C-alpha cells in the first residue's frame, strides 16, 4: 500500500467514492424503502422515517438516491471502460503498425471530435431511444477517440525505444510487443485518463437524463431526479439539492483519484513515454492547427 501513503488526493478521492460504491453494490441493504414505492405523502420534510424527505409522488428520496448510485456508476464506469478497451486496442495497434490504418484512425477521430460532444450523445440517444444500454453505448462512442489518440501517441513514441527494438530484433511478433511492452508502459497514464473520463461520462450521463434522454422512469437516476425536482422548485426546493450533491461528489472523487494516480505514476518514475501522456485522453484534443499531435 506504499502507493497510497502521502498521496492525499488519492486518499481523499477514494474516500469520497467509497460510500457511493457501497451503495451501488448493495443498495437493498442500505436503502430503507424501495426506490419506486409510494411510501407516504409527497414533499414531506426530512424526518427520522424519511431521512431526506419524500419526492413529488411520495417516494423516499434517500432510497432513490441510493439506488440511483447503482445506475449512475454503472453507466459511467461501463461507458468509460468499454471506450478504454476499444480505443486503446485500436490506438496501440494502428500506432504501432503505422501506415494507412493509422492515418485513417486519426481522420475518423478528427471528425468525431469536431462535434460538440453532448450534442452527439443527445442525437444518438434520441435516435435509438433512451435506455441504460443505449446511454452507455452513446457515451462510449463519444470517448473512444480520446483513448484512441492517447494509445496511438503512446505506441508511436514507445515504438522507437531501445527495449522495443531489442524485442523485435529477437523475433517478437507485434502481438507480443503490444501486450508485453506497449501496454504495461502505458498503464499508468491510462489509469489517469480512465478516472478522468469516468468523471466526464458521469456528468454527461446526468446531463442526458436531465434532458429526459437517460434512464427511463420510474427507475431513479440522479439526473432525472434533478429534473423532477426542478419542476417543483417553488413548492419544495430542498429536494433538488441532494441528487446534485451526489453527482458533484462522485465527479470530484473520480477527478481526485485521477490526479492521485498521476502523482503516484510520477513518483514511481515509470511514466513511460511521458510527454503529453495524459493530455490526449482529455476530450479537448482537436487543435485548430491540424490535429495530428504525434
Amino acid at each position, binding site marked *: 500500500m506504499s502507493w497510497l501513503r502521502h498521496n492525499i488526493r488519492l486518499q481523499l478521492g477514494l474516500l469520497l467514492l467509497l460510500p457511493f460504491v457501497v451503495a451501488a453494490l448493495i443498495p437493498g441493504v442500505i436503502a430503507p424503502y424501495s426506490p419506486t414505492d409510494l411510501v407516504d405523502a409527497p414533499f414531506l420534510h426530512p424526518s427520522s422515517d424519511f431521512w431526506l424527505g419524500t419526492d413529488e409522488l411520495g417516494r423516499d428520496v434517500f432510497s432513490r438516491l441510493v439506488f440511483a448510485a447503482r445506475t449512475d456508476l454503472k453507466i459511467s464506469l461501463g461507458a468509460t471502460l468499454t471506450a478504454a478497451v476499444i480505443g486503446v486496442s485500436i490506438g496501440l495497434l494502428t500506432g504501432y503498425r503505422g501506415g494507412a490504418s493509422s492515418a485513417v484512425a486519426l481522420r475518423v477521430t478528427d471528425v468525431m471530435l469536431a*462535434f460538440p460532444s453532448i450534442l452527439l450523445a443527445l442525437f444518438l440517444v434520441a435516435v435509438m431511444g433512451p435506455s441504460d444500454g443505449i446511454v452507455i453505448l452513446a457515451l462510449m462512442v463519444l470517448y473512444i477517440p480520446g483513448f484512441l489518440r492517447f494509445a496511438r501517441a503512446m505506441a508511436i513514441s514507445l515504438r522507437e525505444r531501445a527495449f522495443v527494438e531489442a524485442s523485435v530484433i529477437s523475433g517478437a511478433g507485434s502481438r507480443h510487443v503490444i501486450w508485453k511492452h506497449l501496454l504495461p508502459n502505458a498503464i499508468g497514464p491510462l489509469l489517469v485518463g480512465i478516472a478522468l473520463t469516468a468523471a466526464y461520462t458521469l456528468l454527461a450521463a446526468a446531463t442526458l437524463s436531465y*434532458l429526459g434522454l437517460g434512464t427511463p422512469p420510474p427507475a431513479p437516476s440522479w439526473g432525472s431526479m*434533478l429534473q423532477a425536482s*426542478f419542476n417543483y422548485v417553488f413548492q419544495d426546493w430542498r429536494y433538488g439539492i441532494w441528487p446534485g450533491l451526489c453527482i458533484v461528489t462522485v465527479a*470530484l472523487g473520480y477527478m481526485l483519484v485521477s490526479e492521485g494516480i498521476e502523482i503516484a505514476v510520477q513518483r514511481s518514475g515509470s511514466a513511460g513515454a511521458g510527454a503529453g501522456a495524459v493530455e490526449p485522453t482529455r476530450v479537448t484534443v482537436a487543435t485548430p*492547427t491540424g490535429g495530428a499531435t504525434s
Partner: protein
Amino acid sequence: MRLLTPVLSLIGVLLAISMITFAIATALPGDAAEIRVGKRDDLTSEQRNELVTAERERLGLDQPVPVQFVIWLQQAVRGDLGVQEGGGSVGRAVVERIIPSLELAFLTLAISLPLAALLAVRSVRRGKRVFSAVAGQLSTVGFVVPQFWLGILLVIFFAVLLGWLPASGYEPFRELPVEHVKRVAMPLLTLVIPTTAVFFHFMRQSLRESLTSQYIRTARAKGLSDSAVLYRHALPNALLPTLTVLGVQFGQLLGGVVVVERIFNWPGVGGLLIYSVERQDFGTLIACVMAIAAAYVVMSTLIEIAYRMVDPRIRRA
C-alpha cells in the same frame, strides 16, 4: 492563399456533418409520413394507408436515402430547409431561435475570457500563494458542478429564496431591456462559471510555462515591474495556446447552452432541438443540429485563421 485551406475544409466538414446527421436522422424510429397523417378514426385502415403512401411520396420518403439527401441538400443550398411539423418554415424557425442561443454563447465568452485572464495573472504573481490555491480549488469545483445543477441552485437562491429574479423566460431586448437583462442574468451566470474555470486552468498553466522562458528573464533583468512583465510579456504569449482550446471550448459551450436553455426556458435552438426530438420532427431536427454544428465549425475556422495570423511559425507549415 492562407485563408483558402481553412475555408475549403470548413465546407468539407459541414458537408460531412450534414451527411452524418441525415443518415442518423433517417434511422429514427417512426415514420414521418405516419406521424403527419396521424390517427384517423374516420378512415378504414386501407384508406389511411393510401394517405400515408401519398404523404410519403409528397415528402420524397419513398426515394432511397442518398437521393433524399441530394434533394434535401439542393433545397438547403437555396435556403429552403423544408416545412416544420404543424406548419411554418424550418429555416425561419431556426434563424429565430439561434440568435438567443448565440447571444448567450458570445456574452459568456466576452465575460469569461477577460475574467479568466485576470484571475490567472493574479494567481501566478509572486506572494499570491493563498489566492492561487483558493482559486485553483474553486476552479476545480467549477469544473465538476454540472451546469443544470448550478442553474437549479441559482434559481433556488435568486428566484425562490430571495425572489430577486424571475425563474425563467425571455423578453426581447428591444422592447423590454430591463426585463431582458433580468432574465439573461441567471442563464449567463450558469454558463460563465464553468467556462471561466476551464479557461482559468488553461491560462494559469501556460502562464506558468511562459514565466520560465528566457524572454521573461530578460524582461526582469531590464528592471521592468512585476505587472509589466506579466501583462506585457507573459500574458500575450500565454494567450496564444488558449486560442487553440477556444474552439473546442466553444463547442462545449454550445452543448451547455442547450442544457441551460432547457432550465431557463430560453427560446434558443437547443430547446427547438429537444422539442423536435420529442415530436420526431425530422427536418427541424437536422436543421437544428446543422445550425449548432455550423456555428461551431465557423467559429473554429475563424480561430484557426486568427491563429495563423498571430503565430508566424504556423504560416510556413
